[in-house]
């Protein structure tokens, strides 16, 4: 540790009117290290990142040193010029611009240019991508790229203006296992170049794979910085939450008769020849790489993606599902992966979100909504799922990620579905809330619900499901009973034993 730290932050306070978001926080980053920043939602991680990025200003008295010299980061450009780059969870890219522009834009602005030199833009982009060892079509509009590749664009952008320190906020939340591994490889390359990484993630397993040091925040306070060897998962969790949380394998209940049967479902360009069954009281895990066609298959069950051929049987009766409305009528619920985009109406109240799928059921006289019944149901399910705070009139956007997910769950549970499809149930949710949701899913299964759960996080699949299906390139390539399933076996199937072939 004799090295001169790249960044030193001391006595960082941030007070919003009436609330202390950061309280004497410190952070030290060494050149070329991968540093994990951990803490529950609301612990102050994002505020700290915003200060580093120049989006927010710390309260007076803060000390920020870069290369040992005091630094002044007043706006995003300052951060960039100091060699700090942030890759936000949503990547902060421009869907309507080309890959090349997305990569080079920040640099051009940083240089204070007035005119665009397209040759230079392409050159910058080519170089940055070459540094990453990735090839992408520079002229492609960004929105046409899959998410994993968009992330590469975001990383390339950081490299483009010679960042010496890259902050990655939840970089793996939308990546599949294989893509995560390629990302780690890239992080390794960056490390070699002496670029420091601040890695923010809720997936503790990943952090232990990649990070060398951990800084823990809790309730806006600095808890400590630890070397990897000083910690294990359990200890880290207890530091984060201040109490011990058991991250246990959930107990299983007995599964019942077949609830749903899918026979050789096929849709061109989506999936081919998909057959499986789902039993009453069962949690069926569906995993595979992102882009393997998992979401496309479950959307076919919810009427969002009408298949070309194949049959779906519900309780032994053949059904034809062409819209979410029909699916709902058949007792199917679907909790999509994009909670904020597809799951919730953020600008409306929690109560209205919960009752949205129920509107038909709470119709009273003259087709008017029965306000009393609505209130009753909303309260019942907010209570049952322990949505906090228990304020039905609060806007959905004001809730934390975990509570938002509970609201989406409440919405669907209130329809009393026979089958619940849930896509990446704990994406971007902190540890405590994850365990709660896992427990809840098991509880629902034990009450006889059939649950089809998509997850890219294998520990989650192994902790919750009764059976595991694996998809690869639009096909089902494996099925394991939970007793025989291991991470290795599943990964093997997902990659077909040829992990080298899959590049991010």
């Amino acid at each position, binding site marked *: 540790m004799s090295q001169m730290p790249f960044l030193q932050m001391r006595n960082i306070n941030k007070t919003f009117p009436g609330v202390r978001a950061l309280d004497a926080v410190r952070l030290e980053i060494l050149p070329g290290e991968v540093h994990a920043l951990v803490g529950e939602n609301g612990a102050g991680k994002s505020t700290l990142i915003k200060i580093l*990025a120049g*989006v927010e200003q710390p309260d007076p008295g803060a000390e920020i040193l870069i290369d040992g010299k005091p630094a002044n980061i007043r*706006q*995003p*450009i300052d951060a*960039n010029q100091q060699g700090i780059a*942030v890759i*936000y969870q*949503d*990547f*902060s*890219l*421009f*869907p*309507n*611009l080309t890959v090349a*522009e997305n990569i080079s*834009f*920040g640099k*051009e*602005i*940083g240089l204070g*240019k*007035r*005119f*665009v030199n*397209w040759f230079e833009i392409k050159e910058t982009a080519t170089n940055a991508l070459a540094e990453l060892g990735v090839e992408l079509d520079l*002229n*492609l*509009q960004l929105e*046409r790229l899959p998410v994993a590749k968009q992330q590469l664009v975001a990383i390339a952008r950081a490299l483009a203006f010679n960042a010496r320190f890259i902050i990655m906020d939840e970089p793996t939340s939308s990546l599949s296992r294989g893509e995560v591994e390629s990302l780690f490889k890239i992080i390794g390359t960056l490390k070699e170049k002496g670029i420091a990484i601040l890695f923010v993630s809720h997936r503790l397993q990943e952090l232990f794979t990649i990070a060398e040091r951990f800084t823990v925040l809790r309730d806006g306070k600095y808890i400590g910085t630890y070397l990897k060897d000083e910690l294990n998962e359990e200890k880290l969790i207890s530091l984060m939450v201040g109490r011990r949380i058991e991250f246990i394998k959930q107990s299983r209940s007995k599964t019942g008769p077949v609830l749903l049967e899918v026979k050789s479902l096929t849709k*061109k*360009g*989506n*999936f*081919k020849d998909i057959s499986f069954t789902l039993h009453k009281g069962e949690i069926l895990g569906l995993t595979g790489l992102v*882009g*393997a*066609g998992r979401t*496309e298959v479950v959307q076919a069950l919810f009427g969002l993606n009408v298949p070309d051929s194949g049959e779906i049987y519900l309780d032994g009766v053949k059904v034809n599902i062409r819209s979410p409305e029909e699916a709902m009528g058949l007792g199917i619920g679907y909790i999509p992966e994009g909670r904020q985009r597809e799951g919730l109406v953020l600008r409306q109240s929690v109560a209205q979100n919960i009752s949205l799928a129920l509107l038909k059921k709470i119709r009273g006289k003259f087709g008017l909504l029965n306000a009393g019944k609505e209130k009753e149901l909303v309260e019942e399910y907010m209570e049952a799922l322990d949505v906090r705070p228990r304020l039905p009139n609060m806007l959905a956007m004001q809730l934390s990620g975990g509570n938002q997910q509970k609201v989406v769950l409440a919405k669907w549970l209130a329809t009393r579905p026979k089958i619940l499809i849930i896509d990446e149930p704990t994406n971007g949710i902190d540890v405590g809330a994850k365990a709660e949701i896992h427990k809840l899913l098991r509880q629902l299964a034990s009450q006889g619900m059939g649950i089809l759960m998509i997850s890219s996080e294998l520990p989650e699949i192994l902790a919750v499901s009764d059976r595991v299906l694996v998809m*690869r*390139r*639009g*096909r089902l390539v494996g099925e394991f009973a939970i007793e025989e399933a291991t991470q290795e076996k599943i990964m093997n199937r997902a990659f077909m034993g040829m992990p080298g072939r899959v590049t991010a």
Partner: protein
Amino acid sequence: MKQRTKSKELWIFIILVVLSVLISARSNVFLRPDNLIDLLKNNAVLGIMALGMTLVIITGGIDLSVGAAVAVLTVLIGKFMVTFGGNLLLTFLVAVAGGVIIGIINGTLIARANIPAIVVTLGSMSIINGLMLYYTNGSWINDLPAWFIDFGKITLFKFHDAGGNVVGIPIQIIIFLIMALLTWALLKYTLMGRAVYAVGGNPVSAKRVGINIERTLIFVYAYMGFLAGVAAVTHTSIMRQVDPNAFLGFELQVVAAVVVGGASLAGGNGSIIGTVLGVLFMAVLNNGLILTHIPTFWQKIIVGLIIILAVSFDVIQRKRMEKSLPRVDVEY
């Protein structure tokens, strides 16, 4: 297929070609050089305004005050020329300066006070129109100086058409082409232009990469104002008198040309080529009505139907294309 915006432009181009073929099948006048020149000249003002509106719409805004702005600017230069004489350069400067001031006021209210663009410009439309008509009472301004009338009559690149008549390109078309090129280059080759796309595509990210959103928005409305000034001079040079009421309801025509040209009101998308095609589409559609001898009382019905068909076909074929795009690389 490569990019959605490109396919959008291609589609408008196809519709435009089909429409032109249909019209020329019924009228041998339509494709005559003099008609095409008239058509371009008479839509130069619409075109110049639509260029500015494209930028505004790319940022996700709208400017409903353009009709009022251009009208007040024609009055301004009319009064200026009649009172002071002046010269062409000064007249241009007066028009452009007036337009930029209006644009800066609109832009500042939109960017700083965070009021939706449609509201601000709806308000400024009634304020500008009201004040202008209060002071002018709608009187026309005649007796513009001779040098200005002569300026309006300039034609360049004279050539002989099939009938042996001398045909030239009027100055108004040249102004439109210069403005189109200027705006195209602005969008493509300046950082401000790319910032316009960035702000429309993702304002949060734009802020994060260090784009000054307020400045970008104010620039966009000011540029709209600048083009309103150019349009005012162009219009007056064609009409040779100033009618303060000449632009009532013009704002919807401008917006129509831009959105038909493929720009999305949600922001982020739109291009100068698309807008020029959109302007041409509206121009050809209107030009064809009399040339193909369509009875007066049927004209609006036909215009309405063609617009509906054109925009629906565009969506239908795009949907079909998107549906056929594979989402998963399925192994067969």
